[in-house]
């Protein structure tokens, strides 16, 4: 597995760029504010800063994990990337045959074409599958929409997909409510893969499932990645799952990335106090290691009124004066390891992996 970690830093622009055309996706300064309307005239009185100046890139065949608490903006990120929401600013470049296309400049038809290459798996397989449609209809829908297949051909194509995700052909005419949670998620995966996408955005694909089944789905995703050369953007609040599947992991807090590093590096050697706190609460691999769980003080700040300086300072155990006043820069503290913390160089934080 080739992990692209030759990243060149560009402080001024605040963005990360990949060398070569190994990059499949590049997100630049993506920002999404939801306006808050108020009053008779529906004036905009504020913004919920759901996504703030997020930049990263994804290499082909890589899995980029994104973790964070619920409400940190993970789902917004996915939806903006899928152009379900229009971003407030920023761009996203997609590598189509070596050409980087900004998806926000596409028209409806071009966008529909692009959708073939980029698909999504939702968190809740129950709500992401129309309960009134059979498996055939659900998985076949993207194929029909794009005119890829129909009739008998559709059926055989869907059967292949079913086989690929480990379901039986005899399930074709069943409705989602006849399946268990794991099976439903397999159906959702089959649908996502129907159009042979290059990149799949996984929005907490296993968090609604039983623990035992989570593993099966994760492994299925990994197998599929190997087989089909897929690229994943894997979002979860569950650090252990992310660690298991990701090549690199990004940590999100309040709409911004606070740390991004190859997963082993991140888990072993976190550079951001928030990452440390997250990890401390995760019983990974070594249940016997008696680690002290770091309890974060305070509550998640209101995203429509984020704190000044470092957004995390209100809950950070290490916070100093500078954290309150100055926004920390997004810096590469070691090769491929990015963070935005004033104290990144001075603090020695505890990871989980030895």
């Amino acid at each position: 597995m080739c992990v692209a970690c030759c990243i060149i830093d560009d402080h001024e622009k605040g963005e990360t760029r990949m060398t070569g055309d190994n990059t499949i996706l590049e997100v630049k300064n993506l920002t999404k504010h939801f306006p808050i309307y108020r009053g008779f005239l529906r004036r905009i009185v504020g913004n919920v800063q759901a996504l703030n100046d997020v930049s990263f890139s994804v290499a082909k065949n890589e899995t980029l994990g994104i973790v964070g608490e619920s409400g940190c903006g993970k789902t917004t990120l996915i939806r903006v990337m899928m152009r379900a929401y229009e971003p407030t600013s920023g761009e996203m470049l997609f590598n189509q045959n070596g050409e980087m296309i900004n998806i926000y400049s596409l028209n409806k038809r071009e966008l529909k074409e692009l959708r073939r290459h980029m698909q999504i798996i939702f968190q809740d397989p129950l709500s992401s599958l129309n309960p009134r449609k059979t498996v055939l209809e659900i998985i076949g829908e993207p194929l029909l929409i794009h005119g890829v297949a129909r009739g008998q051909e559709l059926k055989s194509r869907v059967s292949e997909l079913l086989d690929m995700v480990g379901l039986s052909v005899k399930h074709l005419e069943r409705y989602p409510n006849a399946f268990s949670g794991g099976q439903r998620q397999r159906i959702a995966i089959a649908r996502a893969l129907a159009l042979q996408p290059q990149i799949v955005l996984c929005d907490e694909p296993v968090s609604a499932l039983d623990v035992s089944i989570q593993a099966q789905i994760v492994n299925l995703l990994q197998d599929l990645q190997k087989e089909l050369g897929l690229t994943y953007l894997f979002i979860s609040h569950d650090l252990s799952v992310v660690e298991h599947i990701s090549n690199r992991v990004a940590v999100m807090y309040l709409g911004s990335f606070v740390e991004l590093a190859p997963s082993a590096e991140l888990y072993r050697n976190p550079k951001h106090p928030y990452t440390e706190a997250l990890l401390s609460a995760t019983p990974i691999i070594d249940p016997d290691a008696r680690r002290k769980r770091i309890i974060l003080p305070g509550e998640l700040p209101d995203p429509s009124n984020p704190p000044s300086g470092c957004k995390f300072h209100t809950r950070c155990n290490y916070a100093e004066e500078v954290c309150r006043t100055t926004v920390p820069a997004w810096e590469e503290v070691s090769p491929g390891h990015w963070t935005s913390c004033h104290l990144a160089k001075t603090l020695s934080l505890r990871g989980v992996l030895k």
Partner: protein
Amino acid sequence: MMSGMKHYKETADYINKMYNRQSQLDESLADQMRESEKIADATSQWRLMWRKFKRNRIAVVGGIVVLLFYLVALFGDFIAPYTLEQRMTRYSYLPPQRVYFFAGGRFQPHVYALETGRDPITLQRTYVPNPDKRIPIRFFVEGAPYKLFGLIPARRHLFGVEEGIISLFGTDGQGRDMFSRIIKGSQISLTIGLVGVALSLLIGAVLGVASGYYGGWVDNVVQRLIEIVRSFPPIPLWMALTAALPQHWSPLLIYFTITVILSLIGWTWLARQLRGKVLALREEDFIMAARLAGASDRWIIFKHLIPATFSHIIVISTLSMPSMILAESSLSFLGLGLRPPLTSWGVLLQQAQNTQVLLLYPWLMLPGVFVALSILAFNFMGDGLRDAADPYTV
């Protein structure tokens, strides 16, 4: 605050060991579920709905009654022993006749012949049955000609008598058989609801779904429209609108216009309900999934939203029927609805709204009983359907 953080104990090895592409565990779990909840292989929502509906005894009874009503209305001309125009003036204001089933220990349905007269003081019609003269009831008897379904000319009636009169529900002032008239009246009263509901469905579904799905200015316009329509109290608005009907129009045209007027108000309720439903659906992931798969608005509306709201539409229609039937009879009662020679339950009731009817000829109020019965049946049925409609609450 790390919410929902689960203890994820499996090691990678363990995971690999457990993992099997055929996922037997998964399969058996689902099998167990099926077994316990009796979900058949290709269980559609309709089957589910039907199964739940069947369990509601009173709703089933309501449904059967509704079905029966429509069947009777459909074959009304055959079932009714007399046509609308048949007047037996000799027998005006005849009270419902008693039917005797056995003659001399043998099954031989019959009625008694009647001696007619007038009370010398009150001048009321009097009818004295003569037990010595039995008039047998014949089945599939030749009678006045009619057209079955308005198409097939026929003369046979389900039952009838060869002399005298058979009037199960009595007669009106012109000696017309109320049984036959109520059956004929049901044809209009029951269809006016259907047509009205269909029309309001059309308007309501289109506007409701559009307003829920598109939101924005479409939603705004539709919502304002609904508010304005709703800010008219229904009966007065109906009154005003029906008063505006050109009365020289043909009865059929009037009939349709009145249904249109009834549905003009009926749709708002439906539209609101559907909008709410669509608003909720729009946020469902499967809609997002379809959209992200590149589906157009039309695709989403017709392939996902409308089918998803279908059970609601059916429930709402069933529950709207009573108000349509009631509205028709109320308007006709006020003299603003249908007019003779059109015969609906409302028209029959309008003709019966006299003191003397209640005092002297109470059987002329029978159409009211049928209005009540049909509404009751529709309500019970609709109620059962509503309970059965939600696919998630098995």
